């Protein structure tokens, strides 16, 4: 039985492919989408949705949906979310059609205007009803766009976060810091779009890349806890000798990160290290150690590692997290019953699981939560108000499998293949990789702990030679 299970899961894991759709709503969303497509994105469909025909025609998206043919008659929503909502209602059928056959749906929208604020929550709802995992990327308007627009954006954000599994929110006011003060306004906007594009692409890669230590949806969800609308995101890439150090530095340089200070309060930090075949264990060690200085002891680090030959000599780091509750207090005046209940459950659970982990700051201890956070995701989907797909039905089976060491009595072939399903075996086969890391003695660099690491030919020279060469001296 066990043998059969193993044989079955291995090829499936290699061939694993998760259909992803990226949906953009409204004018700002379309801009971001164009950027994402131009930057190059593999293995994902793009859908552009807007009320304004003019901007739709100029979009590079392959699939386009016009909202509210009679409500707005091909014009924009005029900054009125109600018009946007009505338009979405009118075109409900087309939206649903466009959203089918995707397991993950990313929704990009600029909140504050008519279409973005009005239609995006509706589309999120439709996406969720279609049984997909919904991650929304929203931008909040600039402060100078007026109070009214800001209020509309906040309201839309609240509604959006009710339906989406996770909301990654970019504050335009903060994005302003991205560009140098003397840069032109187009440059500032382009940079903002680029940041969104970068985060979408990195999350897509995060999900699609088969990892040594994989990051799953559950990890992603844990990092982007539903109610937190402000996201901390960082991406860095380097190919020098000291690439681990430099990639991290670059990732923390992102203004959304505030040089890593934002991480101090985060409860969850998701880190994915990706690199070519030349990435060494010590590089990852160094990187995680350095990152460890930016996060508090209470923080749960969700760690993933990927070897992708296409990266060549480069090493990239993706850090995703959301701000803690206090930081987010401004936005918490709403209390959607289901969402808050879920997050409370989660919180208490994480409080429990976090305890054994913080003993050592090893990223590798993540084995436990990786397997155990799965039930959360199921709680979320189970409580998802209108959803009636097969996910909740499957979850008891799934939980049982995780809870008990014995394999299920059904043959694997008979099981309906859902994304949830594929994850569990994948994790099982990864366990050896993680244990390998565990065996590695936590190396200290002694006197050089706080200095810039010296990495030459992939070895951290600050670690005593006899330790690296594994020569017993005593």
């Amino acid at each position, binding site marked *: 039985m066990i043998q059969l299970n193993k044989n079955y899961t291995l090829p499936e894991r290699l061939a694993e492919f998760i259909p992803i759709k990226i949906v953009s709503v409204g004018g700002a969303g379309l801009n971001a989408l164009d950027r994402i497509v131009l930057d190059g994105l593999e293995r994902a469909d793009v859908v552009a949705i807007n009320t304004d025909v003019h901007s739709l025609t100029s979009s590079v998206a392959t699939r386009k949906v016009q909202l509210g043919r009679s409500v707005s008659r091909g014009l924009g929503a005029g900054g009125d979310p109600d018009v946007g909502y009505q338009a979405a209602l009118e075109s409900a059928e087309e939206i649903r059609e466009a959203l089918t056959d995707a397991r993950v749906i990313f929704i990009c929208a600029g909140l504050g205007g008519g279409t973005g604020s009005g239609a995006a929550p509706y589309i999120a709802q439709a996406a969720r009803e279609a049984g997909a995992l919904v991650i929304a990327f929203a931008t909040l308007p600039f402060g100078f766009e007026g109070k009214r627009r800001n209020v509309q954006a906040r309201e839309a954000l609240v509604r959006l976060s009710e339906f989406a599994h996770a909301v990654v929110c970019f504050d335009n006011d903060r994005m302003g810091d991205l560009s140098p003060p003397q840069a032109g306004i187009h440059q500032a906007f382009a940079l903002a779009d680029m940041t969104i594009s970068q985060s979408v692409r990195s999350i897509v890669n995060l999900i699609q890349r088969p990892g040594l230590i994989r990051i799953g949806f559950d990890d992603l969800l844990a990092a982007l806890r539903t109610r937190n609308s402000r996201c901390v995101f960082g991406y860095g890439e380097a190919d020098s000798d000291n690439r681990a150090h430099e990639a991290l530095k670059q990732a923390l340089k992102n203004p959304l990160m505030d040089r890593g200070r934002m991480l101090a309060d985060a409860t969850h930090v998701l880190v994915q290290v990706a690199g070519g075949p030349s990435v060494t264990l010590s590089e990852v060690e160094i990187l995680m150690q350095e990152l460890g200085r930016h996060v508090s002891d209470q923080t749960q680090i969700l760690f993933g590692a990927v070897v992708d030959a296409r990266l060549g000599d480069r090493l990239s780091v993706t850090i995703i997290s959301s701000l803690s509750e206090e930081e987010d207090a401004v936005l918490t005046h709403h209390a959607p019953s289901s969402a808050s209940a879920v997050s409370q459950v989660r919180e208490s659970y994480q409080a429990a699981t976090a305890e054994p982990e913080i003993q050592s700051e090893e990223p590798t201890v993540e084995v436990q939560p990786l397997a155990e956070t799965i039930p959360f995701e199921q709680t979320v989907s189970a409580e998802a108000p209108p959803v009636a797909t097969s996910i909740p039905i499957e979850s008891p089976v799934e939980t049982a499998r995780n809870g008990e060491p014995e394999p299920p009595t059904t043959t694997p072939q008979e099981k309906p293949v859902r994304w949830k399903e594929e994850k569990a075996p994948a994790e099982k086969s990864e366990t050896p990789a993680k244990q390998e890391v565990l065996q590695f003695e936590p190396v*200290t660099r002694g*006197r050089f702990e*706080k200095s810039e690491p*010296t990495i030459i*030919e992939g070895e951290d020279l*600050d670690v005593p030679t*006899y330790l690296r*060469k594994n020569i017993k001296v005593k």
Partner: protein
Amino acid sequence: MANNNLMVGLEIGTSKICVVVGESRPDGTLKILGVGQAPSRGVRKGEIVDFETAMKCVHEAVVDAEQKSDVMIKSVYVAVAGSHLQSFNNRGCVMLPEDRDEIDEQDVEDVKINAREVSIPAQNAFLHSVIQHYQVDGQQGILNPVGMLGEKLEADFHIVHGVRTRIQNTIRCVKELPLDVEDVVFSGLASAQVVLTQNEKDLGALVVDMGGGTTDYVLYSEGAVRQSGCLAVGGDHITNDISMGLRIPMARAEKLKTEEGSCVLGNCLPGEMILLKDDSGFAGKEVERETLNTIIHLRLREAFELLKRRLEEEPYLGYLGAGIFITGGCSLLSGIDHLAADIFEIPANLTHAQAAWGVTSAVENPQFSTAIGLVKFAQVMHTDRPSRGFGRIFRGLFSGKR
């Protein structure tokens, strides 16, 4: 006490800061008047990590030097090191105008500027461009082309560059004291000035200056610098290894290394122990001598092997007629010359500053090679002798004042 012939070299090392005051004699020799030093804190791997602390230490060392040499120090030559320093060889080329075929000084300047027109990372700055050889119309090995006839002047330069801000950190530390910075010099190049004679440079020699935090190397062949660089591994690493391997504090490890350490294996009795005394003089822990030596040996072997691999990227290693010259604090470790000779398969010598006299104890200490080298460098700059081995340095590039 104003004396135009006074020159001061300052090296902010990882383990100590030393200041050497020298005087240039009319006959061209160099006399060392005094040496000041202070233990260094706030420096790691040749670079300042704690600005305030490092500044205090530099001040201490300067005051010490002033007392010992009885001069007022106003300006210094400063050595820089650190893993960010990189080097490469590049050729510059200028064509003489149609109506003129005699090469003049301006052409020589132009060819140097031309050689610098290569892309280095945006955050980097040129530190040195050292002339290797000129070529006139394809004729090789010309040392001074001014006055020669030709149409095309080419020049091979060895260019050293590093991260601008990191070099500036060192300069700022000195300027805050306040002292004027005459120039910044790559410490390996400074050491080579006094460690090697012209004859050895012509024969081909490799200088390895192994200090506390870094190992600087400069390779000469046919009288010109061919390769240079800095490896961020030094005596500190050995001490750290000992401290971790034998589980003793850093200070104790340092003492053990300098008093008992050796990198020769199999040279002691089996089971031979070293007794560690604690601060009050009572016998404490015992460590096996072979263990200590193994730790040192492994680290040094690795460093040398790394160095060898770096140098093997270019073919000069096979043309070292004079051999390897090891200097710096680490050269005091017993057996290091044999180890180097073993790995490089080239004779290795332990050496110290040669081309100077005066305070003999300082001159003969390999720890002062770089600082004395700075003074020598200054002497060369001052007398403005046409110097092989040195290009003019971009003045004003690093120091705001000039």
